[in-house]
């Protein structure tokens, strides 16, 4: 499939009229050159790679705009995601500049769309609706389809199975995706069509063209004819489990999606169950009529294959997050990630009938679907004695993270201020406990105190200490004020030894019960 890069930039309000010559220009070593042009410009005899100044001399009324290659590529990638409605394996083909396109692996799938002819018609009709002019071809090999899509007379071409050799024989040599120097050389030998190469001895062909270019000609020919295989690199790995439906009319409301979702979930659940696997990551993809996709994704804390559970998660995540635009005409539910199910699960609908770990997993999934990934956490002790580092809250799994045995039972606060907050203190001795301190503008008198508990900085770790300064030793004090409120204070830095950069400072790190 080939879609015109220039057209894909279009669709905005200031798109040029198709009748006026228009070109996208690119700044290169030789100044401004034409990168892409519309039909009107081509009709005037302009061509790609031409100097912009020359082009303006030929067509003084040529309108132009700077080419935005990254955006073109991004648009093509988006279109590739949209094309996943036809096949799970869609590759963005960027082998040759200005000849970009999409390659879809349709092996064994065309009948789902009413046959190959219907498929091509449907594909181009949908693209046309989204204002994307396109040419498309189906052949036994990607290279063959590439050539037919670009150089066949008909914008929709099908090479019947096993007849590719004849089908591309009459195409110009450009159809082989060759570098320009090889093309020039071939033309110099009078070899203009792909079919001209068929009769030539391969060894001679490879030798005749010096260096890599010669091998390239043979390789490209072999790829086109299917002698060597050419694997596609899909934009993203094809999901193993997917279920889809096509709507007769574009669906513009979330209700329409919600209505059909149970069917999808059931179909996906059956596939997963058949293989004894459960989804860890679900994606619901809507294919919009304007050639884009809209997706919501949920991650599960434990593999699950129950339709009800999947439905609940997607609803909790919010179907309203799907941007339906002018409507979607196909919907796909896929498991982006699947894992073997260790335990046979019961019905996820009623939590109390399930075993505790599964029920907890279902709960965590529901919470995370609505509150966002990573909203549910469990504590995990780490090998560090710096308080804020020694305890991490990791993403919750049904089983509690294994805890190394507690190092000691020194009192610790129940609320930790992270980062610590600065306090002003008054101490009897420079390196003693504070007598008074002011935190959040409220002065407090210390009645009881205990400390110091000295925690050295972990010199083997990089990273800053408090307030982005180099880490220093901390002396922790547990203090109680007149009202009986208990705080965890520390002095950062040691007088006499670590006060070179700045004076030791006081911080409040936590609140006790």
């Amino acid at each position, binding site marked *: 499939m080939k879609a015109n890069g220039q057209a894909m930039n279009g669709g905005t309000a200031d798109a040029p009229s198709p009748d006026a010559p228009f070109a996208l220009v690119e700044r290169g070593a030789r100044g401004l050159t034409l990168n892409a042009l519309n039909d009107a410009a081509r009709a005037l005899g302009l061509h790609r790679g031409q100097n912009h100044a020359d082009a303006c001399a030929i067509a003084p009324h040529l309108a132009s705009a700077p080419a935005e290659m990254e955006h073109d590529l991004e648009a093509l990638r988006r279109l590739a995601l949209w094309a996943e409605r036809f096949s799970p394996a869609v590759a963005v083909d960027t082998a040759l500049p200005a000849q970009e396109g999409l390659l879809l692996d349709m092996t064994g799938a065309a009948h789902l769309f009413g046959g190959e002819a219907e498929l091509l018609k449907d594909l181009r009709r949908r693209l046309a609706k989204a204002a994307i002019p396109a040419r498309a071809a189906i052949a036994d090999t990607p290279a063959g389809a590439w050539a037919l899509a670009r150089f066949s007379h008909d914008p929709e071409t099908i090479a019947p199975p096993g007849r590719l050799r004849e089908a591309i024989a009459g195409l110009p040599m450009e159809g082989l995706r060759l570098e320009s120097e090889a093309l020039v050389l071939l033309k110099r030998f009078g070899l203009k069509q792909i079919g001209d190469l068929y009769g030539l001895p391969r060894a001679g062909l490879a030798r005749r063209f010096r260096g890599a270019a010669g091998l390239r000609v043979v390789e490209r020919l072999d790829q086109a004819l299917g002698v060597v295989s050419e694997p596609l690199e899909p934009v993203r790995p094809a999901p193993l489990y997917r279920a889809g439906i096509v709507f007769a009319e574009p669906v513009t409301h979330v209700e329409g999606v919600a209505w059909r979702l149970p069917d999808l979930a059931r179909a996906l659940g059956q596939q997963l169950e058949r293989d004894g696997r459960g989804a860890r990551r679900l994606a619901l993809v809507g294919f919009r009529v304007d050639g884009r996709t809209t997706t919501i994704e949920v991650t599960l804390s434990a593999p699950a294959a129950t339709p009800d559970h999947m439905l609940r998660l997607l609803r909790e995540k919010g179907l309203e997050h799907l941007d339906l635009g002018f409507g979607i005409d196909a919907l796909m539910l896929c498991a982006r990630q699947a894992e073997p199910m260790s335990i046979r699960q019961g019905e996820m609908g009623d939590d*109390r009938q399930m075993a505790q770990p599964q029920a*907890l997993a279902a*709960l965590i999934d529901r919470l995370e679907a609505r509150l966002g990934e990573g909203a549910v956490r469990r504590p995990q*002790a780490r090998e560090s004695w710096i308080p804020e580092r020694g305890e991490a809250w990791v993403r919750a799994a049904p089983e509690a993270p294994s805890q190394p045995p507690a190092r000691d*039972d020194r009192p610790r606060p*129940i*609320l930790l201020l992270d980062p610590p907050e600065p306090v002003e203190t008054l101490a009897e001795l420079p390196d003693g406990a504070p007598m008074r301190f002011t935190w959040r503008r409220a002065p407090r008198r210390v009645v*009881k105190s205990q400390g110091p508990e000295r925690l050295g900085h972990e010199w083997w770790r990089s990273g800053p200490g408090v307030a982005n300064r180099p880490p220093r030793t901390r002396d922790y004090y547990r203090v109680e004020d007149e009202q009986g409120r208990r705080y965890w204070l520390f002095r950062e830095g040691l007088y006499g030894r670590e006060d070179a950069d700045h004076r030791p400072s006081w911080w409040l790190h*936590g609140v006790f*019960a």
Partner: protein
Amino acid sequence: MTPASLLHRSEALNPAVFPRAAEPLEEVGAEAPGDVGAALAFALSRLVSARLTSAPNETRPVALVTTADWLAERGRPFAGGMRDWGLGADRLIWVRARREGEALWALEEVLKSGTAAGGLVVAAAPPFVTTRRLEFAAREGQAVGILLRAGPAGDLSAARRRWRIAARPSGLDAWDADAPGTVRLRAELLRRRDGPPGAWDLEQDDETGGFRVAAGLAGHGVDEGERPGDERGDGRRAVA
């Protein structure tokens, strides 16, 4: 208190008995913003006390649901310190919601699921209907829900008990006279469905991590377990 009142077995008839077992939904408020630590610890002890009402060997986790505002102001839960209140790190689940509405919803899900022994949510102003829902959810899931409120509240709520907590100067440390000792706090029961209100001075029980009535401190009330002839046997063993 008269000796006769000690003979009453039912908490409902004896206002002076500290109700150790938690109701499905209770409200815990700090007397002043600075008492948040004490209020949180008391709330945790109420959650752990769920053990008394449901299974004796409760292993289900306990969820703490916080809002973004609260986190920014109060700090984050620190499992190392919660361990001292009878909640091991293996039983803690922290749910971070952005807004209060989400937080209340999350707690309802937690309670309803039946997979958690209880849950605590920080809430400034939960609507009455929501508190009703929470209470039903807690009953359904055989869990305890706690609404942790920043300040005293007089609004309508479905919570069966409303506590007001204030920190009290700590007891004497056995080894160091200058150090903060046994944690003490004042728990005021402002409202309860099953009897008149009361107030107790509580102190931490070092063995269990829970609270017990500080004996001979204020004389406001007695502990359930210290009543003679209590059919629950030795109250201290049941302390959560």
